[in-house]
């Protein structure tokens, strides 16, 4: 369980997260929607401890992330996939995937390699194991990014606008993989602008607006005329995104 209680994050005078409460239980797929600057990515960065919160608490499987030991354990539970891939440019696709397992989990090299190859095969990249990120297309890089997160066998997958840097065709490739993961029961917190896809795979939709949580509803309710759409801000956002 990821428990987010009244989290506040400020940059100077600018309040980016203004008392966000959210619970993510194992097996759920929760999509976070909202306009640019609404605090979606910051929320992810707070959960994996890249940003210090200015108030409230985040607890991942009982580990408080404001405590160094707790943060270390919480990070073992969460895998992150980044918007701009953030692959290590000096390592091959395979090495990108095995770095954390061998260094952090102390998985034997052989076993880590085998697991990484299996992950790459699952996303159709078994042939590209020895390629460096610069030799991969954007979609391929992001698939490696997903494998890298999965290699740590995380309980929760944090996805931060993972298709924003991709063209529609590559986006479709990556989304197909995420849909499969969702169907397999992977717990995901999915920050996205892909509304139709979010509607397809999510069990719940969360809507952030200027750092506040405007809605946290089961997917069908969120898109129902008397549910999320009844809120003018959400209706406005969705109609804009449709165009």
């Amino acid at each position: 369980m990821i428990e987010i209680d009244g989290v506040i994050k400020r940059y100077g005078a600018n309040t980016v997260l203004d008392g966000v409460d959210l619970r993510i239980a194992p097996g759920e797929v929760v999509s976070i929607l909202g306009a640019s600057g609404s605090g979606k990515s910051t929320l992810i960065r707070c959960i994996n401890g890249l940003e210090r919160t200015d108030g409230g608490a985040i607890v991942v499987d009982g580990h408080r992330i404001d405590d160094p030991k707790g943060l270390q354990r919480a990070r073992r539970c969460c895998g992150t996939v980044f918007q701009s891939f953030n692959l290590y440019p000096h390592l091959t696709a395979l090495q990108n995937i095995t770095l954390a397992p061998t260094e952090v989990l102390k998985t034997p090299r052989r076993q880590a390699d085998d697991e990484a190859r299996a992950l790459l095969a699952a996303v159709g990249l078994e042939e590209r194991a020895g390629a460096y990120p610069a030799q991969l297309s954007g979609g391929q890089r992001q698939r490696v990014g997903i494998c890298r997160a999965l290699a740590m066998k995380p309980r929760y997958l944090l996805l931060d606008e993972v298709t924003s840097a991709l063209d529609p065709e590559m986006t479709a490739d990556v989304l197909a993989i995420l849909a499969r993961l969702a169907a397999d029961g992977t717990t995901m917190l999915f920050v996205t602008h892909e509304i139709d896809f979010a509607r397809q795979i999510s069990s719940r939709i969360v809507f952030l607006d200027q750092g506040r949580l405007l809605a946290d509803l089961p997917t069908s309710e969120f898109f129902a005329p008397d549910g999320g759409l009844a809120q003018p801000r959400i209706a406005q956002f969705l109609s804009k995104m449709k165009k």
Partner: protein
Amino acid sequence: MHDTGFTHHDLVLLLQGLGVSVGLFAATTIIGLALGTGWALLRYYRVPLLAPAVAFLAELLKNSPVLVQLFLVFFGLPVLLETDLTPVEAALITLSGNTAAFVYVIAVSAIESVGREQLETARVFGLGRWQTLRRVVAPQAAAFGVGPLTGLLVNQLQVTSLISVIGVVDLTKAGAILNVRTLAPFVVWTVVGLLYYLVARLIAWSCSRLETRLRAHSQWKGL
């Protein structure tokens, strides 16, 4: 009237001088690389007191003539410490410090060239400081730094010629001795210059091979 003809002993003298120059260059490069990189790490980890201290020291060493530093170490240090210092020891200390100061600058910018997102990614995946340094920062910084380092090392080889003034019989000093005896400056200094040139080319060639290896990841091999 003394004999001004070249003998095969002259060649031995030149090669001995070359050996001293290359040996000092190699030793001071190794020490300078270790020191300069260490100083850069003090800065990277923002170690209190030590980080600003090495920054100040590097500034001093970079912004004063090596010859002045050499005189200070050779003539000044023994007075201050009340010990004797051989010319070779003085040369080792001075050139190592000077190389370290410039390596420090290169290492600092090389480390800073590694993107913030790389460090964040390593942190998110649970890598510790040392693991991040060793597996993520160092390889990328090395690939970035080896180019400027090549230029520095080629220059530092030429700088070793300054140690001849305190009596170290390096290649330049050997040339000066031969010059006085043979009275054939054009031949002697051409040969000496060529020997420096060949060693410099060797350094540049080795560095460029190293660079190709370190930058394997950014070489375009096509899809």
